[in-house]
């Protein structure tokens, strides 16, 4: 079993750091699935009080890593599956936030226990020599027999998706709306209008986003789709996001779920699913 990856572009390093920091804010543990071409991170829906939603990120290895090598435990296996503390991984990568990082290596190795070693080579102002900052993040290797419970979630079949050019207003609105009502109804129309409705005993608050781009349309007679979700889950997702003002796509699978998607790059995509609740 072998895994090794190298990053060199400061922009990509910062993006990866932001992605992991987002996951670390959502849940204690994260799953890392390493494939031949892709790397996935998954944080599961938290059943406890924090009520964070299911979020996963798929990264095309060639996008981020000029060097990427993965050998599964056996030749007939396609993956390495690991779990680790998301906070530990976040801390290990936090060095990438600052400037002067030359390169960053990720390596699976066994010291006394299996771990992902993050080695960042950092230039300091006082010396011409680069420093090496090394973090060993302990991981648990998941045996192939358990893989069925560790699969990358499927993107739900939304009837309608709208893309929002800026997250900023929606994010602060949802944070406020969670105090108004425990559930939020998302209503989308093919004309590119998204309504977020919060209803409480004393008031009904409807936030309207107009002139959005409908992304993909199913052959559906109905020109509208709506779904109610847990407002604390929605707020937890937006509150955790560390990605700067990216475009967000909101897909609505009527009565089932809302799919949130952020395209960091063409092949680096963050997803979340907010399951439907009774309004």
């Amino acid at each position, binding site marked *: 079993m072998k895994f090794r990856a190298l990053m060199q572009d400061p922009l990509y390093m910062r993006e990866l750091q932001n992605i992991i920091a987002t996951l670390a804010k959502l849940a204690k543990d994260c799953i890392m699935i390493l494939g031949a071409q892709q790397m996935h991170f998954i944080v599961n829906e938290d059943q406890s009080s924090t009520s964070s939603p299911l979020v996963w990120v798929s990264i095309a290895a060639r996008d981020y890593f000029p060097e990427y090598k993965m050998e599964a435990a056996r030749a007939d296996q396609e993956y390495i599956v690991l779990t680790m503390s998301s906070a530990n991984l976040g801390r290990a990568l936090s060095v990438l936030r600052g400037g002067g990082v030359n390169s960053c290596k990720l390596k699976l190795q066994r010291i006394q226990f299996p771990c992902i070693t993050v080695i960042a080579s950092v230039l300091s102002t006082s010396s011409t020599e680069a420093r090496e900052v090394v973090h060993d993040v302990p991981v648990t290797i998941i045996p192939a027999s358990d893989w069925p419970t560790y699969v990358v979630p499927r993107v739900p079949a939304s009837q309608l998706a709208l893309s929002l050019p800026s997250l900023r*207003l929606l994010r*602060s609105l949802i944070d406020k709306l969670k105090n108004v009502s425990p559930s939020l109804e998302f209503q989308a129309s093919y004309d590119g209008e998204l309504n977020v409705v919060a209803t409480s005993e*004393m008031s*009904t*608050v409807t936030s309207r986003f107009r002139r959005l781009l409908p992304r993909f349309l199913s052959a559906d007679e109905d020109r509208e789709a709506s779904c109610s979700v847990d407002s604390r889950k929605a707020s937890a997702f937006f509150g955790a996001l560390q990605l700067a003002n990216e475009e967000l796509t909101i897909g609505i699978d009527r009565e089932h779920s809302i799919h949130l998607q952020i395209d960091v790059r063409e092949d680096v995509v963050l997803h979340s699913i907010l399951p439907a609740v009774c309004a």
Partner: protein
Amino acid sequence: MEDHLEDYKFVSRLDHVKTFNAAIKSICFNDYAMLQVSDEGLRITVEQGRSIQATLFMPPAAFTEFHVQDFQSFGLKMNALSECLNLFGTADCSVRMLYKDQGDPLKIILYPYDDEDVSTECAIKTMDSEEPIEYDLNLKDSDLNTIFVRGPNLSKIFHELEKSAEEFEFITSPDRPHFKITTIGIMQAVFSVEVAKTSPMMMMFNCPQTLVARYKSQQIRLTNKAMQAATKVSIKTNTLGLLELHLVMQGEGQEEIFVQFYVVPLLNGID
């Protein structure tokens, strides 16, 4: 999206939400508010028990647009109103207020300036209105002690006063100390501030008589938020000790919003 505006008995628009929002927050000490609209302007009154009353008053000139049919009055929940005005946080918005008729909700629509494709409409349920208590300070002028002071200065004085005090004593007098605020704490610990009528923070001083009255500090403290936002404050008292604080808040477009408090004195405060 909008129904015909002529269907509404009250239609108004404000260019900036900020000052209105601050004014609403400053009188948010009880959840039930009475709202009254007439040709004279908009009034929102909040009371607590029978001892303190706050009224926010906005004349038609404070609005960019203001139309009202007859006299409209209804009750609503202050928290719902404040929550709505706060939805966009610090982002600047213009606000439209609409009200159709008895039993219909008060609609508040916010339009943030930095994204013209976004708006939020809040429909706040309205209730039957009760009549606000009338505290008449319209007594003979000779019976009133009146002081005008600069808001920020007064706010600072109140900020420095003892936080744990139980009672406040106000003295207004033609002779020294002119204007004195004393806090009386637990174990009768006393702390006081005197402001001479020649002080630069005084904008006007007209106190023909010496008046002393005590108020519950909890109630005086309810005026704190309003005082922080005020540019000018007028303080009036009469022989009964009834205290009127009249605060002026200035909006971005120089429009003025008024907040008026009536505070009933403690009985043992009058000798």
